[in-house]
């Protein structure tokens, strides 16, 4: 179990690195799908099978398909790979990458050091089935469900309005 967790974590991290440094948009997208699948396996290993299923269906399924459609509509040719290579010069990424690495090192150090007695010693508990999640979602968090519905409606209207082709207006 523990070995599976570390292997899956390594897969997720490597795939995410390939997304961040990728040159080709479609290849980066495929690596992102691998990363999402790995995180879904992590959820399953942690004992959250419902979240794992949602991750595969909605994230890796629906959202990634949306990305694929938009990348297909953008008509990116082979020259965009060379353009990406020019944009991603070491002079550009070195500063932010080093600063982020410093922050990450501090974060990991804090997680391992500061609260070793309370957090690091404790372990992940039992598997939580979908039934408990549903009961909690529709009783205790009902207002949040309503707010999420409103947000999805606003996103629908906003995406339709922004993505519309305006004829004769604009630049």
């Amino acid at each position, binding site marked *: 179990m523990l070995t599976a967790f570390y292997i899956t974590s390594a897969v997720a991290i490597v795939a995410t690195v390939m997304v961040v440094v990728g040159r080709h948009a479609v290849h980066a997208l495929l690596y992102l799908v691998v990363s999402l699948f790995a995180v879904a396996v992590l959820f399953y290993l942690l004992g959250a099978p419902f979240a794992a299923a949602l991750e595969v269906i909605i*994230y890796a399924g629906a*959202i990634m398909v949306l990305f694929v459609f938009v990348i297909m509509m953008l008509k990116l040719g082979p020259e965009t790979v060379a353009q990406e290579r020019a944009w991603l010069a070491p002079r550009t990424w070195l500063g932010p990458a080093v600063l982020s690495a410093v922050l990450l090192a501090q974060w990991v150090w804090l997680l391992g050091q500061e609260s070793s007695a309370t957090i690091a010693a404790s372990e992940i508990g039992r598997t939580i089935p979908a039934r408990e999640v549903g009961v909690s979602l529709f009783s205790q968090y009902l207002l949040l469900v309503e707010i999420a519905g409103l947000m999805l409606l606003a996103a629908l209207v906003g995406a339709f309005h922004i993505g519309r082709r305006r004829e004769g207006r604009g630049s």
Partner: protein
Amino acid sequence: MMAAVPIAHVLTVAAVLFVLGVTGVLIRRNVVFMLMSLEVVLNSAGLAFIAAGQHWGQPDGQVFFILILTLAAAEVSVGLALILQMFRRFGTLDMDAVREMRG
């Protein structure tokens, strides 16, 4: 299923993914890659929520993961619509090209 995974290790994985996503947002100039990095950031937040929920043995972590999923779906749809509109108007995906705030 009993997973004897220390929670600090799960949180460390979430931290690594989060920082990778933030670095991606910072270093890329292509808007599509920036949006993908934002997805990574949201996903790592979801992983942290799930880890905390499993740690306490409560379903709340998964509930908040579902809400993060909803947020990600809304964000991606609006973001991709913005990318399409930007590509139509400027003919490029360069973030630096969009610095004139005209209507």
